[in-house]
């Protein structure tokens, strides 16, 4: 608990960390409260105000049906941010477990697992996600699974390298000498070491997850209409982009803002946890 507080203090001392933490906190609050705070019904048509530019009535303008863009972006934050977090958590947990297991067991099993992760990492991650989606079919949930699976090998690598560092340490040997079971050693002795580097990586991956999820929806392989998912909003806005830029500009800026927030937080965390690696 003490170390968590120390990390947070160090985090708020760097400009990236402080801004990132604040932005992420605001965005998460907005996501959780989003639909309730939305000024209008995100699905309601206002035919007299189609393609409206930002005004006091429609703060960020309207789309081709006259739907309020601010309300739609707020409603869509759940299907973008929360699902991206879910995808990251799936990839992180699966990767950490595989990495710890592989590193601790060692030998042939470790060799085999590492060869498979090498091969998967030899496929560009968007291509791999597309391949998985072609099997599972297009939907938001399947896109989340695909991104989670695509993140797993990288996380497994990180968790494994930490595991290899601590495997020979005295407290692991002591636990082995006490006759503790393999799973107890993996979870109680090794896992606490793996958490910090994995969390830094995961924070940076959230930005990737948001961008990839939106990309998959944009390509028509993730969220399906009439969802206000941000990538899908941009895909639908393309048909009308020469009449009004707002339907693509608003969700586009929202995606970039979330990605910037998590990139800043990730960089700040990395500096706070590993001061000598900062530049």
């Amino acid at each position, binding site marked *: 608990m003490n170390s968590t507080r120390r990390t947070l203090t160090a985090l708020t001392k760097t400009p990236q960390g402080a801004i990132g933490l604040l932005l992420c906190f605001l965005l998460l609050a907005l996501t959780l409260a989003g639909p309730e705070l939305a000024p209008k019904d995100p699905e309601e048509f206002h035919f007299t105000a189609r393609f409206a530019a930002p005004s006091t009535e429609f703060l960020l303008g309207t789309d081709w049906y006259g739907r309020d863009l601010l309300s739609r972006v707020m409603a869509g934050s759940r299907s973008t941010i929360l699902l991206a977090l879910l995808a990251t958590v799936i990839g992180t947990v699966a990767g950490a477990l595989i990495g710890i297991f592989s590193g601790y067991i060692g030998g042939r099993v470790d060799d085999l697992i590492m*060869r498979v992760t*090498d*091969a*998967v990492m*030899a*496929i*560009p*991650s*968007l*291509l791999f996600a*597309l*391949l*998985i*989606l*072609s*099997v599972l*079919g297009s939907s938001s949930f399947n896109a989340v699974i695909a991104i989670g699976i695509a993140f797993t090998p990288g996380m497994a690598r990180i968790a494994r390298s930490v595991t290899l560092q601590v495997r020979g340490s005295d407290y692991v040997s002591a636990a082995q000498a006490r006759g503790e079971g393999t799973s107890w050693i993996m979870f109680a002795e090794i896992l606490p070491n793996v958490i910090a580097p994995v969390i830094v990586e995961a924070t940076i991956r959230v*930005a990737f997850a948001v*961008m*990839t999820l*939106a*990309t998959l929806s*944009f*390509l*028509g*392989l993730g969220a399906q209409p009439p969802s206000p998912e941000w*990538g899908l909003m*941009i895909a639908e*806005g*393309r048909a009308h*982009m*020469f009449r009004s*830029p707002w339907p*693509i*500009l608003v969700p*586009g800026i929202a*995606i*970039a*803002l979330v*990605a*910037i927030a998590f*990139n*800043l937080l990730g960089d700040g965390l990395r500096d706070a946890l590993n001061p000598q690696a900062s*530049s």
Partner: protein
Amino acid sequence: MSPEFIIKRFFYLLVTAIIVSMIVFAVTQLLPANAATMILGEYATEEALLALNAKLGLDQPAWVQYWQWFSGVLQGDFGISLRTGQAVGPVILSAFGNSAILAVFSLVLVSLISIPLGVIAASRRGRPLDLGVSLISYLGVSMPEFVLATLLLAWLASPAIALFPASGYVPFATDPLAALHHITLPVLTLTIVLTAHVSRMVRSEMVDTLESDFVRAARLRGVPKRRILFKHALRNSMLPAITVIALDIGYLIGGVIVVEEVFSFPGVGRQLILAIQNRDLPMLQAGALLMAVTYAVANLLADLAYALLDKRIQFK
């Protein structure tokens, strides 16, 4: 660089390519509907399905099917597209040529822009110029290609401005100027996003190099600042820059898929998306395999360049 290193690295490439081909094949094997169902439609009779399954060899064990597919690929035969009924090979290879044009133009531009940009930012560390470059590159890495591409399209190809065509492609052989005109927006998108990635990395490598002992020694000897920057430090930062660019090729391939879709550019990415939407297995397998192998070859070339440039590295 010893011949053994080259041979060993080439062997790795082969193994990677084979494992990737297995993954690609396995993934498409898991598809819920097989080729016979796709050709005959949902309401085909049981007998017709069985007959076509036997004709296509789909009743054989998976490894036999894999071998048939893989030995065909080795001879340049990628099968017949389920969507168009044409041979996949020529279609995907010509698409690959188009995609390669986008990728090569972008890579050259990225190298020319991002390395000097990173060097200059590092040499003015903490000053307004450095902060400006950092801020813009933060924005660049946080902007997915499809957002940037769509915004550029809505702005520069709009009827009011109409600087560039909104979509399509002209072969370089027919009209080089029109061809350049058509690839400008896709290449611009890829270049902006990748430059943001690469210049950030080059900057942080340069910052480390400029603090190293040999740069300080050169400064104490009275070597001019410009000479230190471009002669001593840049040469040392070239190696990490090559690695960063090579690592970003995976990212570039993803970007190419998206950008081709936005600008309706007839490359591998667009064929791949079409194949997924239409469940066109042979096309999907060919496109995915081609992209994955390209990535593996790019990594091999980066390793070789690294070994050539850095005399200290003795790969065993």
